[in-house]
């Protein structure tokens, strides 16, 4: 492949690796759970993204056909990362935080939903809160 493409691919690989690494470093380095939560949710998504782009480009040059199917993975990650992050956050809030003490007010006549059920208590089915 042409040196330019090769350079791009190499660069992307490095970037991807670096971001993935950074995410993990943050995971170890940062002081408490919530801050640690930041690093992977961002860095890793981009890390994987960069690597995917790299592989797409390289395969386009090796096999001569565009294999965008890899983008699906990124799509998945972008869809799921926030959900996972918020689940983790809620778990943390639920286990280690107290709605009154260490959280800001909601500025609403109700609490954060981790501490107060949005759905009326008699709603037998677990179907979602209708804000």
């Amino acid at each position, binding site marked *: 492949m042409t040196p330019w493409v090769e350079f791009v691919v190499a660069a992307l690989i490095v970037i991807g690796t*670096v*971001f993935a690494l*950074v995410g993990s*470093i*943050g995971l170890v*380095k*940062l*002081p*408490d759970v*919530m*801050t640690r*939560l*930041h*690093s992977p*949710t*961002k*860095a890793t*998504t*981009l890390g994987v993204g960069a690597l995917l782009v790299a592989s797409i480009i390289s395969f386009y040059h090796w096999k001569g*056909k*565009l*294999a*965008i*199917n890899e*983008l*699906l993975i990124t799509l998945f990650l*972008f*869809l799921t*990362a*926030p*959900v996972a*992050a*918020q689940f983790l*956050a*809620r778990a943390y*809030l639920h286990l280690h935080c107290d709605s009154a003490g*260490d*959280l*800001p*007010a*909601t*500025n*609403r*006549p*109700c*609490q*954060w*939903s*981790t501490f*107060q*059920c*949005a759905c009326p208590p008699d709603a037998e089915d677990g179907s*979602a*809160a209708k*804000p």
Partner: protein
Amino acid sequence: MTKPSEIASPKLPFRQRWIPHPSLTGVMILLWVAMANNFSPGGWLLGTCLGLAIPLLTQSIWDTTPKIASYGNVLIYALVVLWDVLVANIEVAWLILFESPRDLRPQWITVPLDLRSREGIAVLAGTVTLTPGTVSCDLSADGRSMLVHCLDARDIEEIIRRIKTRYEARLLRIFR
């Protein structure tokens, strides 16, 4: 996979009866062709079949269909977010690598929401999580304000303003 009763009743016009979510159908077709990496007519054909079948099978889970106002805005929004994600990553990377943890000022903040549609809020939350130093952690029980955690909150107002103008405003235009 759906109960017969769940399928929309036959008096609906043909389009809504058989293609309940055109946008979803389109996405499905594209995704299939992309995933199977097969741009031959056969691939498109199979994709179309799936694109028609899967929404029909799963339509029962879309009890509230998101109303997309303009697809143009969706595109713009996507690009904005992508850009911000890039930036966010670099920022966070910087923070992680070169800031000593002691200098970080992690902070909880409450963002009041004007968005109402569930999808809108969901997308906003996702965006917040993916973008600079913020993770959306919780909603108030009535879903009118969002709990956000900032990795390094130097200027809270700035962050809130960004969230509201840069993302929420656009989303308001997308989901009505």
